[in-house]
């Protein structure tokens, strides 16, 4: 257990085991495991906090600046919590031609994501929904394309958005029940 681990009681055995397994895939240099560990941390905690950066740096015998540098380089790695349901709409040419900007506006309106927290990044008041633009998602033949968390959605229409939102609201109700 390194110093940061002692402060993080919620790091379960399974988490640390998974991290060790990932590190074992890079026998030549542990540093290669930095991005995979950032993914792992983000999957568990929703975003990478400074503690996350510290933990990963210690785990891989790196200076924390080395991990911070890559955490800020890759847009998929979030350093702030962003919506429980994150809509990521492609804005690049083929999807824009197919109407992705209109889809973006529709989602923004439907989810009431009014707080602008970054360039083209909006979060709802209750923090449940967020919508942002991302670059080409490599499914241009089925434009417009978007991602909802880790799921890809193609040929997106307003009808599909309505259906997704209904489903999410029903799920939320089921959770609360």
């Amino acid at each position, binding site marked *: 257990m390194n110093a940061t681990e002692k402060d993080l009681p919620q790091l379960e055995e399974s988490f640390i085991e998974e991290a060790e397994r990932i590190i074992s*895939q*890079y*026998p*030549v*240099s542990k*540093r*290669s*495991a*930095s*991005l*995979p560990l*950032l*993914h792992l941390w983000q999957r568990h905690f929703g975003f990478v906090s400074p503690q996350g950066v510290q933990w990963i740096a210690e785990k*891989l015998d*790196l200076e924390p600046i*080395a991990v911070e*540098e*890559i955490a800020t*380089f*890759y*847009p*998929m*790695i979030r350093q702030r919590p962003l919506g429980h349901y994150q809509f990521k709409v492609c*804005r*690049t*040419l*083929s999807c*824009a*031609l197919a109407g992705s900007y209109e889809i973006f506006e529709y989602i923004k309106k439907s989810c009431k994501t009014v707080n602008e927290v970054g360039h083209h990044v909006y979060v709802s008041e209750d923090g449940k929904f967020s919508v942002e633009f*991302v*670059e*080409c*998602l*490599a*499914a*241009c*033949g*089925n*434009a417009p394309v978007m*991602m909802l968390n*880790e*799921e*890809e959605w193609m040929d997106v229409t307003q009808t599909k958005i309505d259906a997704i939102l209904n489903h999410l609201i029903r799920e939320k109700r089921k959770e609360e029940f």
Partner: protein
Amino acid sequence: MAKAEYRLILKHADEPGYTVDIDCYLSHGGYQVLKKALAMPPDQIIQEVKISGLRGRGGAGFPTGVKWGFINHEKNTKPVYLLCNADESEPGTFKDRQIIYKDPHQLIEGMVISAYANRAHLAYIYIRGEFAKGAEILEKALAEARERNFLGKNILGSGYELEIYVFRGAGAYICGEETGLIESLEGKRAYPRIKPPYFPAVLGLYMCPTIVNNVETLCHVKHIVEMGGAEYARIGTPNNTGTRIWCVSGDVNKPGYYEYPCGAITFGELLYEVCGGIRNGNKLKAVIPGGSSAKVLRADKKYKIPKKKEDGSTEIVEMGLEDIPLDFDTVAATGSMSGSGGIIVMDHTRDMVECLRNIAEFYAHESCGQCTPCREGSLWMKKMLDRICTGGGRPEDSKLLLEVANHIAGRTICAFGEACSWPVQSFVEMFGEEFEAKQRKESSLEILEPLTNRTA
């Protein structure tokens, strides 16, 4: 009647009942070519690839056999690595996704054969972070392959050992550049390396010889070993061998991916017959032939294409866009490139300046920021286009856009410099009149001459 596809790589991709598990792959003759390859000396495989004339399918079209030949296996004492570039991020391209999501074992078999040929014992598949499902599919497929001894120690009793792991990216287009990919895999910011001296075949991953190949290229290797290089070279045309997967998106009725031998189909046939023509009965205006980095082609222009005659001499033929066959060299002869095969179609209702603005924002966003021209220039061009599209255009802006683009191309560390300047150069040159229309006669923002001008 639309020309029939030649589905070499995508043979089973959309076959009803075809699944991604290994048993399905094996029942369709999977991993037989691997058996054949392991019985051949590695250099013979490299020779077959050279004879086949296979060119990289990632966008640069560099002959794969030549790339593999860069490593001197006699003198080399360092470990060799094989990296599969599955960071498909070129706008307009969506072919590698089909292979990964629908026929992953083909990629794995191609990788094992390629790794064996290059004496690599450790390989990574660098897959873009957004392909979360794809990474899962690949991990499972690799586990299955390991289980059946197609991967790991002493593969199929040949004594050859190889391990392949999946590395997920996290949303950076620059990781598709081979040295950017290597830097990212080493756990650093994906800053491409200066070449010389950091050629991947000499100083690649962990400063060891490394081969970086596109997903589709590695799949082609399997077919080359299966049918032999000479037989493969008969598909397509001289110097443009094999099949290519063309991805069509934009203003066509049936966007999608279509596999044809090089040179077997023209733009017109592909767009009008296979893709059902332009949507809403509109007219074709512009086509970007090879992903957004390629120069745009104007539909109503004639292109001077050199054609080899029977007697060996070359003549220049004027062709319209519709008649240009889809391959590497002919498309390159138009001044553009076939790149990654991502064809983006724009019809007459589209504002070319807005299209360019969309593309420019992509490059400004994706620039890694390492070298001066690209870092500053890409954002400058985006800001200029924003201003032009929102009513602030001035008559001198077209010229300024061109000059900025000219100062980036050729002056950067990696090809991203060309990638972000070619769209600007080509759109402004091809559709100059649309830019001019957006630029008012009177300047609202003047360029000021300094009081003392440096003399000559």
